[in-house]
């Protein structure tokens, strides 16, 4: 048996940023036709590693070999020429271009745009790997899943023998993600090596082998079939995970929120009418791929966009059309999905951000001036209570990591939310430790009798935390499931906009 060199071999790769070693002696290999997963928390060094492979960063030490040949890619162009293809975490597509133009742009020689030749090669690639892509459709009109395929074909079109997929399923429904994995398996079947970067256990477990990174070092490379999800989680975070979960159904309290055919404003168009009631001490999870009306619904409830029709009652009182300030006064807290754009003023300090929304209250003032001492004291208390790491009261909040920025917003909004807390994607892009913390805090708030609406793309989180789960797609609530009877595949189908109204 002759041992062919592995498709990708990484030996002792080190990349430092100042004193911090983002990658510290990383070694692993990927065989041709293997689906290899790179697992690690945010900040474990996965992105740095893939940037080194793709020629975006120059490693300080170590060796990368592709099919036995040393690879010294100093630019993406060299990495591509060597046969490395990369599917980036966020789509790098031109919405106004057709599929064909997106794939062909930046390739080819001569002065003519060789669209006809490109069309033939795309048909070849799609035929070989069983993809259905219409080259003449505008990318703006494609579904999220189809856009992902375009990205894959783009890389294959450039002749990739090693395909790096950087958290490819962050925006996919479970069904779309399954289809992507079916395609990945056709690729590996044809001898292409796939390096999948992920922290979703459900996907990681479909790989052949897993290399686990923690704080820039390889903790282990294991054959996936020999490991369980719990084993891998433990390797990834260095301790056992204690997932927060809503143990007992909360005692149903009084009605906090009642929506009667409330119609959110979706960019000037009327959304679907939404009716629901929410009780004290209850978490209503809203499942759905982002962009399906969650933002509009939560912004309407927070008073940031007036509804087009319907009514909203808060604590039994008419609250339709009240502005954000009036609703906050009545005990509504709101955690927006884009924390650095809508949730914080990044140039303000932690103390100033905590003050926002109550600057007119007597407790925050000293005569006509802001009470600097009160602000700092409050900030110190919040930093302690919410375990905000990375700064003191006078630190600019833009310098906080995503997880700590989110904790800061939670600290402010929890204080406002006497009756109702609206949370939009609170753990998106947040590492496991902070996610656990945020989940525990949400359950604590629920135990205090606050009603919570939690919109998230992470179904597992919703299942763990929610008392009921509503599925949103295309602006409507397509179905509501009690936690007990929640059926993952039914929810997935509704998320994709399929299937009728559930019970």
């Amino acid at each position, binding site marked *: 048996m002759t041992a062919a060199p592995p498709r990708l071999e990484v030996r002792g790769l080190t990349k430092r940023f100042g004193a911090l070693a983002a990658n510290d002696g990383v070694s692993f290999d990927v065989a041709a036709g293997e689906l290899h997963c790179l697992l690690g928390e945010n900040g474990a060094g996965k992105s740095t590693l893939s940037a080194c492979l793709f020629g975006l960063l120059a490693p300080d030490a170590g060796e990368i070999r592709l099919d036995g040949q040393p690879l010294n890619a100093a630019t*993406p*162009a060299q990495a591509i020429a060597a046969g490395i293809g990369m599917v980036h975490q966020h789509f790098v597509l*031109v919405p106004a271009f057709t599929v064909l133009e997106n794939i062909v742009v*930046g390739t080819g020689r*001569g002065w*003519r745009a*060789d669209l006809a030749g490109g069309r033939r090669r795309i048909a070849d690639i799609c035929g070989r790997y069983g993809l259905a892509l219409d080259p003449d459709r505008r990318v703006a009109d494609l579904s999220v899943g189809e856009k992902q395929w375009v990205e894959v074909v783009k890389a294959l079109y450039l002749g990739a023998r090693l395909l790096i997929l950087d958290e490819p399923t962050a925006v996919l429904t479970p069904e779309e993600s399954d289809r992507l994995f079916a395609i990945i398996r056709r690729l590996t079947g044809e001898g292409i090596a796939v390096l999948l970067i992920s922290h979703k256990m459900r996907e990681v477990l479909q790989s052949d082998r897993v290399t686990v990174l923690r704080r820039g070092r390889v903790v282990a490379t294991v054959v996936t079939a020999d490991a369980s999800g719990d084993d891998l989680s433990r390797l990834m975070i260095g301790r056992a995970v204690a997932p927060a979960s809503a143990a007992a159904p909360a005692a149903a309290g009084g009605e906090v929120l009642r929506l009667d055919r409330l119609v959110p404003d979706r960019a000037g168009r009327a959304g679907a009418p939404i009716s629901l009631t929410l009780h004290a001490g209850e978490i209503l999870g809203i499942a759905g791929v982002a962009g399906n009306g969650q933002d509009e619904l939560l912004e309407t409830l927070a008073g940031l966009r007036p509804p087009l029709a319907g009514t909203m009652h808060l604590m039994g009182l008419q609250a339709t059309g009240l502005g954000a300030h009036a609703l906050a006064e009545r005990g509504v807290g709101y955690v927006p999905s884009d924390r650095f754009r809508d949730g914080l003023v990044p140039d303000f300090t932690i103390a100033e951000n905590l003050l926002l929304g109550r600057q007119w209250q007597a407790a925050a003032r000293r005569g006509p001036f802001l009470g600097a001492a009160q602000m700092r004291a409050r900030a110190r208390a919040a930093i302690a209570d919410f375990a905000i790491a990375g700064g003191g009261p006078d630190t600019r909040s833009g310098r906080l990591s995503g997880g700590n920025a989110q904790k800061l917003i939670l600290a402010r909004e929890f204080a406002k939310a006497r009756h109702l807390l609206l949370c939009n994607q609170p753990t998106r892009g947040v590492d496991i430790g902070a996610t656990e913390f945020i989940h525990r805090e949400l359950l604590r708030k629920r135990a205090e009798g606050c009603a919570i609406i939690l919109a998230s793309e992470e179904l597992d989180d919703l299942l763990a935390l929610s008392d009921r789960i509503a599925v949103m797609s295309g602006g409507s609530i397509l179905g509501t499931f009690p936690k007990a009877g929640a059926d993952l595949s039914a929810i997935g189908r509704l998320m994709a906009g399929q299937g009728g109204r559930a019970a």
Partner: protein
Amino acid sequence: MLSDLLQMSVLASILAATLRIATPVLLAALGELVAERSGVYNMGVEGTMLMGAFTAYLAADGTGSLTLGLIAAMLTGALMSLLFAILVVTLGIEQIVTGLAINLLGSGLSVFWLRAAFASDAKSPTIALFEPLDIPGLAGLPFVGPVLFQQKLVTYLALLAVPAVWFFLYRTRQGLELRCCGENPKALDVKGLSVAARRYGAVVFGGAMAGAGGAFLTLATSARFVPEITAGRGWLAIVIVIAGMWRPGPVLLATLAFSFLDALQLQMQGIGIRVPYQILLAMPYAVAILALALRRRQSGAPEQLGIPYIRG
């Protein structure tokens, strides 16, 4: 008097004047169109045109060659835009503000240089103008001949530049890549291609075109350089790119529409229609503002227009 306007010969002269008036604006607008399709908002068109007008005059006066004057103007425009590109593409400085600075530079430098070269504004000599170039066999056609085929060389070049720019943007590899720079520069960067190189190229081309537009004013219309001779044509070019939805054909139409209004008001003044001439003068600009108001949604604008590309 209104009936005077409707005579064929008068109409022909209005339309011929329309093309003449359109030439400098069309050149500048096509250049700006290419720059903006690459994602760079060059607000310095006015100042670039002004410098083009001045250097064309200076070179034509010095060498006696109008062609050299035109070439000098295009080189100057290219140079001004190169400076602009260094500031906004390489250094990532705010594009609008930098464009305004380029305008001030063009405005001040042209007048300073004029006075340095010729003792005073009034003493600057006049130069010979481009002669109309009759297209053999076509210039004699009734009505169409005087309108289309008795124009000056630069006018023909400007009109031919419309299909040329269209072909470049939509049929060539470089054109596709340039449009990609304006829509999503990262899509090129991840394929290992330089966004900056393409934006430099587009901006410098735009500058050369603005320079040529400026040259037309001194070499084909006024015979000498007068301070602020461009009189807002550079700004009009920017408006026309928006009104033309960033596409060559509609940009031509918009240019012709504005120029027609301008030609019309000249003719109306000429035959003594009793409307204050200031109102007639303002007409094309009022229509430009109206066109902008109606184009509020900016459909067709490159997605990343005006945003510096920084990898990451």
